């Protein structure tokens, strides 16, 4: 049995999911997209459920790729029941999605999560009244404390088994009448298409079912055709008797009355029996004849962007569900005429009005007590003190990461040093095998001892800041400043984290919604000197040329970051008009959520970056063993000559890609001395450091960039960084020649 979890962002949907599916869950991409969702098996009170945790969405009318893919998944019907998770403390707003889901007229359970939060806000909710009004079971829950979770799943299972299908909520008559007419036309068209081209109805593969519709009409359409051609469809079956006066009504009554062909489809109940006979356990929506309901499709078409052809068929521009543009245009004009609003605004206003009416009927809000969280926000979001708090939080955060990291790094490195010593005793140090093994050990050491001790506390800290709700406040505070870099406030974190380590910085770009923002933020984040590059800057420039020069590199870097941001914003202009973000109430972080988030992010890093680091390290060991460095230095000689650097530093630049601080260690080895100033001039040291600061990111960073941005953008970013490093170094060389 497949259960889809649907809810708005911050509704606590994932808490529910984690409580039952936990560590066994998997993250996958929707077929053909980069949109991720989590799925897993859960055993709840003896039943085995297959859970699909869709990304948080505010509405089924998509404005982003995430929402589009999630909606298409729901339309694909590859599920048995929907659990709609709501933040009870945000009931009025959350109900909008609930009403949209009801338009799907499919088995559904509402989970009123965060009831404690609602109580704290002075809200009392009449759950029973809500249940009656919505026509679906409503379960109260406090997910963070594990309350109501099992009950939610148990009731969901019951609902799925009985296939109880709710009726859609009826909106304002002006809208409803026009939408009903359009729905009738869509239904006729579906029947026409299905009857004209009957295809073999096949079972769909999970999730990819969303895309498989591209090849032809979906099984549910075929079933619609078969059922209707078989003569089961009569006008009587199309209208439901109203369950609640004034709230629920028959779908598309106007259409029934006015259209010559009987529209709509089979009665839900008859159809349900049919599918139950076939498979007593599952009740896939894709096997239900009138799924998705014509009224839902009509509403979606009316609400979709009028500049585009409505896309309602799993990404197919003109599927059998899409109404002709003629009737749709007429419907839009009609709604506009009746309401004086653009059609999409009229539909959302109608739904909004329905939500507010419902909210006022079922919820009572007392004046909330002024609590400490409001006081905290007065400080944390203050126009002056807010920034002091921000600086304090980030300094403390980095301090903690470095202290913990350093502690771990030294200890773990000692272990690996010991291991190398043991290997040297037991193997022939002159053999290629030894070189390879040593490379593997050192590569593992780099991953385990150098990256992990910093990454782990960082990921824990990030998850805590996220769960508390502080990150959105950072976004609010930094929005104006980040606009100068062509980004929004939410991109602050990745860029700042870049000063610590580029790997988590790139991973942190995931909090950004658009691909463009992710790319620009990742690019700027890797441009910022990470702690490994800081070592190089201080050990070379700081030590040989003085602290002022080292500081100068940081200042220069900030200028380059600002310029790059401005240029990138020109090349790839912003589409979204600005920040519009919910600022959630502060919450006590749930350790379980923090642990799970950390684990998932860490697992990705381990899977992607570890193998690369180890293989890269082995290759470099072998290069060293066979003495290929001369060839590499020769190959890189045009670059080193251009920058006016000694030929022997070529290889160190390759090592720097493996791990930034290696370019420092290898420099001393390549020059054959620890007194760098003897072997290189001050100018050469400065140019070398500048180049190392700006050129390619290290291999672990490249791996995480590939993961987050795809190889094309990673390649583009690498090329741009290399070019940038050459330009900056050459400019520095020019300036020094003039001086």
């Amino acid at each position: 049995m497949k259960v889809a979890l649907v809810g708005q962002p911050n509704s606590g949907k994932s808490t529910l999911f984690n409580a039952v599916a936990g560590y066994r869950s998997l993250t996958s991409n929707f077929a053909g997209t980069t949109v991720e969702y989590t799925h897993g098996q859960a055993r709840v009170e003896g039943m085995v459920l297959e859970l699909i945790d869709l990304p948080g969405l505010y509405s089924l009318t998509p404005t982003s790729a995430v929402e589009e893919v999630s909606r298409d998944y729901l339309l694909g019907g590859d599920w048995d029941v929907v659990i709609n998770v709501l933040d009870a403390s945000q009931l009025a707003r959350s109900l909008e999605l609930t009403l949209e889901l009801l338009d799907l007229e499919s088995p559904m359970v509402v989970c009123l999560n965060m009831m404690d939060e609602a109580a704290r806000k002075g809200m009392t909710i009449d759950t029973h009244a809500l249940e009656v009004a919505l026509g679906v079971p409503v379960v109260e829950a406090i997910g963070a404390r594990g309350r109501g979770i099992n009950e939610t799943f148990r009731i969901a299972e019951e609902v799925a088994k009985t296939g109880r299908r709710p009726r859609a909520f009826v909106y304002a008559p002006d809208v409803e009448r026009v939408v009903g007419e359009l729905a009738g036309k869509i239904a006729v068209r579906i029947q026409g298409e299905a009857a004209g081209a009957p295809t073999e109805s096949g079972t769909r593969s999970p999730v990819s079912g969303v895309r498989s519709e591209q090849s032809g009409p979906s099984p549910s359409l075929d079933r619609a055709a078969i059922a209707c051609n078989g003569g089961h469809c009569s006008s009587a079956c199309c209208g439901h008797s109203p369950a609640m006066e004034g709230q629920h009504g028959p779908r598309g009554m106007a259409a029934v009355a006015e259209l010559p062909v009987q529209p709509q489809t089979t009665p839900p109940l008859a159809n349900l029996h049919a599918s139950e006979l076939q498979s007593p356990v599952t009740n896939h929506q894709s096997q239900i004849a009138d799924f998705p309901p014509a009224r839902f499709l009509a509403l979606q078409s009316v609400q979709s962007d009028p500049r585009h052809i409505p896309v309602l068929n799993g990404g197919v521009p003109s599927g059998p569900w899409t109404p002709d543009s003629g009737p749709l245009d007429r419907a839009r004009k009609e709604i506009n005429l009746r309401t004086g609003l653009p059609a999409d605004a009229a539909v959302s206003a109608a739904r909004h009005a329905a939500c507010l009416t419902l909210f006022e009927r079922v919820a009572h809000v007392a004046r909330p007590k002024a609590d400490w969280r409001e006081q905290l926000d007065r400080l944390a979001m203050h126009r002056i003190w807010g920034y002091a708090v921000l600086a304090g939080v980030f300094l403390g955060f980095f301090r903690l990461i470095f202290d913990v990291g350093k502690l771990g790094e030294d200890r773990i490195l000692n272990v690996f040093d010991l291991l190398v010593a043991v290997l040297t005793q037991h193997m022939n140090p002159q053999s290629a095998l030894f070189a390879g093994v040593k490379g593997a050990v050192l590569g593992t050491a780099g991953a385990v001892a150098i990256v992990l001790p910093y990454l782990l506390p960082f990921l824990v800290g990030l998850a805590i800041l996220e769960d508390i709700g502080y990150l959105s406040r950072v976004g609010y505070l930094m929005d104006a400043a980040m606009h100068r870099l062509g980004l929004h406030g939410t991109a602050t974190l990745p860029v700042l984290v870049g000063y610590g380590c580029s790997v988590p910085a790139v991973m942190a770009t995931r909090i950004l919604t658009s691909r463009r923002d992710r790319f620009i933020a990742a690019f700027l984040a890797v441009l910022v000197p990470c702690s490994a590059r800081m070592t190089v800057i201080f050990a070379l420039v700081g030590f040989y040329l003085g602290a002022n020069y080292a500081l100068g590199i940081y200042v220069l870097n900030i200028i380059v970051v600002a310029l790059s941001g401005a240029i990138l914003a020109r090349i790839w202009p912003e589409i979204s008009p600005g920040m519009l973000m919910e600022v959630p109430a502060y919450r006590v972080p749930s350790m379980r959520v923090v642990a799970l988030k950390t684990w998932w992010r860490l697992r990705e890093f381990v899977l992607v970056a570890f193998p690369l680091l180890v293989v890269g390290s082995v290759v470099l060991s072998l290069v060293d063993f066979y003495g290929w460095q001369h060839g590499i230095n020769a190959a890189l000689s045009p670059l080193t000559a251009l920058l006016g650097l000694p030929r022997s530093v070529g290889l160190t630049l390759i090592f720097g890609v493996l791990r930034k601080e290696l370019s420092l260690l290898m420099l001393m080895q390549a020059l054959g001395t620890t007194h760098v100033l003897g072997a290189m001039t001050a100018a050469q040291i400065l140019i070398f450091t500048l180049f190392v600061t700006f050129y390619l990111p290290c291999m672990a960073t490249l791996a995480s960039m590939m993961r987050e941005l795809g190889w094309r953008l990673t390649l583009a970013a690498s090329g741009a960084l290399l070019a940038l490093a050459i330009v900056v170094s050459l400019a520095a060389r020019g300036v020094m020649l003039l001086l």
Partner: protein
Amino acid sequence: MNLYEADDQAELRILLITGGWEVRRSFNQIGIQPGDRVRILRRAPFGGPLMIDNKGTRVAVGKQLAEQIRVEVLP
């Protein structure tokens, strides 16, 4: 008057959301609609976003978007 021009802490009613389909949709998604009563709680410096209260939900609205909302002051 648009939302960005309104005074902090004043009780406001949203009259109209201008600026096309995407702007309307994104406000709709976050639960902001014409007719709603909102209040500006605070604003970030240097032309930064506003933080508004809408039926207990806190929303940060960037300057450009806030300028797309026409409001009236409630007595």
